[in-house]
């Protein structure tokens, strides 16, 4: 990325003003000189100074120059390797000229990295992006040509400090770094980078949140979450092949980043430390949305998330709905036993359930939960009755989903058929015995009721709803209705379906018989009664 960026900059050159192009050319010459001739090494100071310039263009130029200089030097191995003596000691110490040069350049390199990390908070995104690319380029070069002496432990050879600096810059506490983090994602494809990043972020959370002392840091947490959600965990050990570090140099078995288990453990640790702290409510929802498919499968012990999920489930409202998904994974795959689960699910059914964004997900799960044939009849009946009662406030797109849902429940549990067919009762009309306010599905008398709500909906204004509601007049067919498409049906889709419905070719569109003479007339002039043409 970085070379292409520099080339694009050079392509733009002819269009720039002459002065600008001259200064740039000068700068490039300077960089070239620094690289070629050790004599001119001092000119690197000019470049480093320029990195702090006001103008975005200057900064970019300096950036590309620095990139050029240090990547060449790193590549050539001209930087000093090993423990770096202090700058002051340089003169006093007895080193050869070559060593001195290497040390000097190494110091400049350190300076440059510091400046670059600061640049990560620059206001221009182009600068930030270029900086990130440059830094990551350094990371990769350092990984190949380690600046530290190789240790027997694999850790040593990975430039952790540099990466830590980068990640620390990314997880800003002041601004939303979502864009930059998404740029960073491509570097996370490297397995070792990912592994070390996990550890670094974990440390960072511990350090930063300790300062917050129980409060929330929305920006920081958001950044962390963005980073976390951008991590694509590998699924198999065989996938772990894409390393930045050439692993020919050390024994592969011992090296932690090459083990999936280690990855998982790091991942899990990171998530725990992240979720341990209080989350802002918007972030809470986001976490819950992705938890079940992006997090839980990659944990070594998903059941540890149980506490978090049950706490979320108890909160109520939309958060409960979302926690359901994670809970389902735990119950389904990890044998979680959850007492009063269905009672809670029953109490989640509120009128707002039909209007929230996660409606499809919720009903998909509810469908799964209620598909068990081992559920007691009273429970299913309570669900059916409650859903049909709530359907009295639902928009048509939801009705088209919820009515087949109800019918499916009755089909699955034939004992619930009494809700729509109770021939043995005396014909005396009764009040509806169902208690909507009762929290316990066992006590709500749903079994003694009938689905008069569906009968009401047979008078609904939408023809499709009427058609579906009419299904309860006849014995239900054996085949269950397919809910797949209906779950996602939105109001607009329903509208489009109605618009695009084929009119019979022969028929013309029927028109109103009563001639219209005024805007506010018609249908008893109701509009005219309440509103005036002003």
């Amino acid at each position: 990325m970085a070379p292409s960026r520099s080339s694009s900059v050079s392509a733009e050159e002819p269009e720039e003003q002459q002065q600008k192009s001259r200064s740039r050319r000068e700068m490039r010459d300077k960089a070239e000189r620094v690289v070629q001739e050790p004599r001119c090494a001092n000119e690197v100071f000019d470049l480093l100074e320029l990195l702090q310039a006001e103008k975005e263009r200057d900064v970019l130029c300096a950036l590309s120059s620095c990139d050029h200089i240090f990547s060449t030097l790193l590549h050539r191995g001209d930087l000093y390797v090993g423990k770096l003596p202090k700058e002051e000691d340089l003169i006093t110490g007895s080193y050869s000229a070559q060593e001195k040069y290497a040390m000097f350049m190494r110091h400049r390199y350190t300076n440059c990295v510091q400046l670059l990390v600061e640049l990560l908070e620059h206001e221009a995104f182009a600068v930030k992006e270029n900086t990130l690319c440059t830094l990551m380029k350094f990371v990769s070069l350092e990984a190949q040509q380690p600046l530290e002496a190789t240790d027997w432990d694999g850790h040593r050879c990975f430039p952790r400090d540099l990466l830590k600096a980068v990640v620390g810059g990314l997880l800003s506490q002041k601004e939303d770094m979502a864009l930059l983090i998404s740029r960073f994602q491509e570097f996370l494809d490297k397995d070792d980078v990912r592994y070390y990043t996990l550890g670094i972020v974990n440390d960072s959370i511990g350090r930063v949140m300790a300062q917050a002392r129980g409060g929330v840091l929305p920006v920081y947490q958001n950044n962390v979450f963005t980073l976390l959600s951008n991590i694509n965990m590998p699924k198999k050990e065989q996938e772990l092949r894409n390393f930045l570090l050439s692993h020919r140099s050390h024994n592969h078995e011992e090296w932690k980043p090459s083990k999936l288990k280690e990855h998982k453990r790091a991942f899990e640790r990171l998530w725990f430390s992240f979720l341990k702290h209080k989350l802002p409510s918007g972030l809470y929802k986001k976490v819950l949305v992705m938890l079940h498919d992006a997090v839980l499968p990659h944990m070594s012990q998903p059941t540890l998330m149980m506490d978090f999920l049950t706490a979320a489930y108890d909160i109520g409202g939309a958060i409960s709905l979302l926690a359901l998904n994670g809970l389902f994974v735990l119950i389904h795959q990890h044998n979680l036993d959850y007492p009063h689960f269905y009672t809670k699910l029953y109490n989640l059914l509120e009128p707002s359930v039909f209007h929230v964004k996660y409606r499809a997900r919720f009903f998909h799960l509810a469908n799964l939960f209620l598909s068990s044939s081992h559920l007691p009849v009273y429970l299913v009946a309570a669900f059916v009755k409650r859903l049909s009662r709530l359907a009295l406030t639902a928009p048509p797109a939801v009705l088209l989903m919820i009515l087949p849902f109800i019918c499916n429940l009755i089909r699955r549990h034939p004992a619930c058929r009494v809700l729509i067919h109770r021939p043995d009762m005396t014909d005396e009309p009764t009040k509806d015995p169902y208690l909507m306010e009762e929290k316990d599905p066992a006590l709500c008398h749903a079994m003694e009721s009938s689905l008069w709500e569906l009968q009401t909906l047979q008078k609904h204004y939408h023809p499709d709803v009427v058609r579906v509601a009419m299904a309860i007049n006849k014995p239900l067919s054996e085949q269950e209705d397919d809910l797949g498409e209906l779950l996602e049906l939105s109001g607009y889709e329903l509208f489009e379906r109605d618009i695009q419905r084929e009119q019979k070719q022969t028929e013309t569109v029927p028109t109103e018989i009563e001639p219209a003479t005024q805007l506010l007339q018609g249908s008893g002039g109701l509009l005219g009664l309440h509103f005036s043409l002003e």
Partner: protein
Amino acid sequence: MGKPQKKSLADKVRKTKTSTEIKNNPFEVKINRKKFDVLGQKTKHDVGLPGVSRSKAIKKRKETLLKEYKLKDKSNKFIDRRIGEYDNKMAPEDKILQRFALERQRTQGKRNMYNLNEDEELTHFGQSLADIEKLNDVVDSDSDTEERGLLSAELTASHFGGGGGLLRKKASGESGDEGSQKAKSRQELIEELILKSKQEKRERQTQKEEAQELTEKLDQDWKSIQSLLAHKAPKAERKEPEEKPTPDEYDITVRELAFDMKAQPSERMKTQEELAKEERDRLQKLEADRQRRMQGDVEEDSTTKQTFLSADDLNDGFILSKGDQRMLSYHDGKWNLEEEMKEGEGDDQEEGEEDDDSDDDSGEEQDEEDSDGESGHSDLESDKDSVQEGGDEDGSATQEAPTMPHSSLSEEERLAQQEAAKAELPYTFTAPVTYSDLKSLLSGHSTEEQCVIVERIQKCHHPSLGMGNKLKLQKLFGFLLEYVGELATRCPPELSTVNKLVPQLYGLCQLFPDAACKAMQTLLTDSAHDMAEAIEIKGRAALPGLDMLIYLKITALLFPTSDFRHPVTTPAMVYISQLLTKCHVSSLEEVTAGLVLCCLAVEYVTLSQRFVPELISFLLGILHMAVPKKQSLGYCVVPPFRPSGKNSDLLTVCNMAHTESWSRKTLPLSGVQGLKLQNDLERDHYRLSSLATCLDLLKRCISLYKSLPSFNHIFQSIRILLAEHLPVKGYPTIIQDLHREVLEAVSVAPVLHTPLVFMKRKPIPLKLFTPKIVEVLDYGKKRGSSKEERERERLKHKYKREFKGALREIRKDTRFLAREKLSEIMHRDSERKRKVKQLFGSLASQEGEWKALKRRKK
């Protein structure tokens, strides 16, 4: 005789014994053994009765073959044609009766048919025709007919009787004694007939002439005596006229009715095309006239001067004097009616008012038009009375105009006329190709003029007038809709213009329902799409502008809302529902828009009484906004409303003191776009008006949904809210009354339900096997593949069988004949033997006698 007796033993048996006896007799029965038993097959021939069948066959042969045989070589035969001679079923009495009847018919009918005046008397008005004939003896045609009748009687007999029995019988009757002349040829017979008829005719003519002569003579005799009776006759004449001229009312009316104009076939009704063509021609003519006037060459001749005709003119001769038109003027926000009343004349007042709206152009133009109109007016009246005209005119700005001599217009007036012609609307318009065309056509015109323009565009491009017109008008509908939308989005919205354009839209919609449907659908789709996008991006959408509300209302006006499924109204309803569920209400403007939507929703379902859940939820949400304390609610509001939050107390009245000065007003539709409410007082009043509207809508919903099974549950939240949370106490009495009404209607006793049962349905019939259809073949095995081949096979088989049967029959016939012949021979022989014996016997006795005689002699 012995042998034949023996032969017909079977016959004898059959005759003497009943059929059951025969069937029970085992010796008579032959059982045909069957090879297979086929289930359900009925066989005719399992039991045979050979004796019986043989006797039957013999009997049949005796009746047919034997008779033939006996009649062989005989040339003549005797046929008895008497009625029922060979009919055994007829009772002898019947036979006799019918024969007798026929006999009578034969003797009577023949003569009656043609001899008109022999037996029956024909009458006319109760008088015998014969008598009349005798009186008016001038008729010789009568005699002719008589003759023709007579003639034809015999002629027809000879022609159609085929020269058969009838004629012969008659002839024989007539010439019974002339037995020798019997053998006459046909030719001769006819000649004879003609001769006879001519003779008769001549005789009659002479008779008549004689009679005429006699009557003439009598008449002359009478005239000679008449003078003697002269004094009597005039009296009789005088009497008659006295009786006649006393027609009573009845007579008069009868006569009137008689001479009354009968319904004459009038000119046919004009077809729509012709009407349209006429209309267009008229408009074109007017346009040409207008052009001419614009050019300025006014015809000086007053008598031929064209009078101005409005496009709305009924052509009934009623002329609106332009001078009476006044500008619509407002004084302190009130219509300046009184002043006009004072100024104007009574009869023209209404007309003036109607047209006032149209002419709010610049004042100058109005004046000039006035002058133009006046001159026209004066031209009209000039023929009658030129002095009076000054008095007719009102004393408005251009007073000098009427005083000018009408025949020569002044220069400045001519100029004025030119101006007026320019200001007038053209009569033909080109149909707009783009929306901006239409806009430029309509811009700068008043509401009325815009209507007229649209109307004229429509008339000029009636679909029957040209090929492309249909498309143009269809486009026009779309443009008009767009224009309406633009009018509604203007600030302030020009809703009165929209109001006037509605009939035009309706008319176009009636002409092209499909195009109108398409246009409406496009509008709805666009808007719904925008909303869907907004929801996608922001998670919520704003309520639509006034234009969309107007469109929805127009949809309800143009298309039937009560259809179960309609390509426009159903999506429109879905769209309304979307708006009611997805759009957040965050200001009083949006409350207004929401209430308009609710109104529309109620209107959409008023006829069909269908259930709209969103409507109730939305009204609940609106009412919830008026609840001051949001804690411990016994109900839950449905999104987009929130139980508490930023905009959840939009409608709470902030100062209860303001309620006293409130009076119920209709909300302005322009409130959707923006409200100019300066202070808390106005805002509170607006809130109260909204609440009143909301409650009234609720009342209507309740009456609509009263019959629904879940009525109580639908309105439960609303009941709780109204009963416990709404601060009614502080509201004005009108709202309190409304509130009480609604609450009473809602809190009726809970509806009792009968448990649901499935609908009864017909039991499913048992499944039946479809029968296997096997072709029945005459012959045993199926042979031949194709149809023709099979048919041939069948025919061959049939032929074979028939052939065999015929052979058998022939054999039996010959056997029978042989037997008959034999029996005949035997019979003859025996007869002969008997006779010989007899002869021999007689001879022997003779001999014996003779011998005895001889012996005695001896």
